[in-house]
């Protein structure tokens, strides 16, 4: 006799034996087929203590993952806000210094040297390309400025590059 199983299992019922709810004749063909397919899927999923334990551990982790994702999104928003604030402050510094008749490029390179602007920001705000940037840097006897990085981090990057290249 063909047997049908109840669907879906709730989390607490997963380790209980399969419950027979009735015979094939009481249901329409479509319904029976649907329930049978679902039952096969669900039975495969719940069968075996190893899989059940694995699913349990995933189920336990998922709220943490969601929570962490929320935290990451929140931190990202904070970073974006800080970045906007920084951009506004730089705009204010530049416009204030322009009022004292300083050249825009002098201001931009000064801010670059202080680590407040990146190469791309200097290029974008100054309307210059990379060649002009390097030339103007050499004209001012300045070197490239990089974000601070600890030695271990740099060594790790170089080690990876040496291995892969």
């Amino acid at each position, binding site marked *: 006799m063909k047997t049908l199983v109840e669907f879906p299992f709730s989390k607490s019922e997963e380790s209980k034996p399969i419950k027979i709810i009735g015979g094939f004749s009481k249901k329409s063909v479509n319904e029976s087929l649907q329930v049978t397919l679902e039952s096969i899927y669900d039975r495969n999923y719940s069968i075996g203590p190893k899989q059940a334990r694995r699913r349990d551990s995933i189920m336990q982790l998922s709220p943490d993952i969601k929570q962490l994702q929320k935290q990451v999104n929140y931190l*990202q928003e904070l*970073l*974006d806000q800080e*970045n*906007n604030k920084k*951009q506004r402050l730089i705009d204010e510094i530049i416009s204030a210094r322009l009022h004292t008749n300083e050249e825009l490029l002098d201001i931009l390179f000064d801010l670059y040297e202080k*680590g407040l602007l*990146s*190469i*791309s*920001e200097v*290029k*974008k705000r100054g*309307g*210059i*390309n*990379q*060649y*002009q940037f*390097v*030339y*103007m*840097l*050499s*004209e001012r*006897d300045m*070197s*490239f*400025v*990089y*974000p601070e990085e600890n030695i271990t981090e*740099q060594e790790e*990057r*170089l080690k*990876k*590059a*040496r291995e*892969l*290249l």
Partner: protein
Amino acid sequence: MIIISDATVLVNFALVDKFYSLKQLFKHIVVPVSVYNEVYGDGNHLPGSKEIFEAKREGWVEVVRYTNNVFYNRQGIRHLDAGEREAVTIAYEKGNGFLLTDDGDAIRACKMFLHLKNITYLSTIDVCKIMNDKKIIRMNYIEMSLKLRQLNSKYKFRYQGRTL
């Protein structure tokens, strides 16, 4: 493994006549359209124009367009110049490789958004060090830096219609 570059590293190597050493180390480099245009310039007088044109023709430099508009317009990279922004976006799309850049914000974006995509950044200093180790060039970064500082006696660039 993919190598994506913005204009900074390419131009530095072109300016010290070591553009082809990039081919020896990386074999294949992907550059965004804006970066190609920036390095190529008007195609004549710039130190990297001929080199990048030839490299593209030879196939070891590949010009690629970004497709991920959502990432391209996201907050953390929106303030970057076009070349750096496109390079970071393509690195995000492709994943698994290296991003060649000297730009502070592109480096920050790489650390923030690209480390999960297995993208590591390399600056001109890093590339110079690796090339020295592999004996591709006999020039350390200090020598390279000194050469870059002497550019004003070697090249003439134009800015806002006047020669610098």
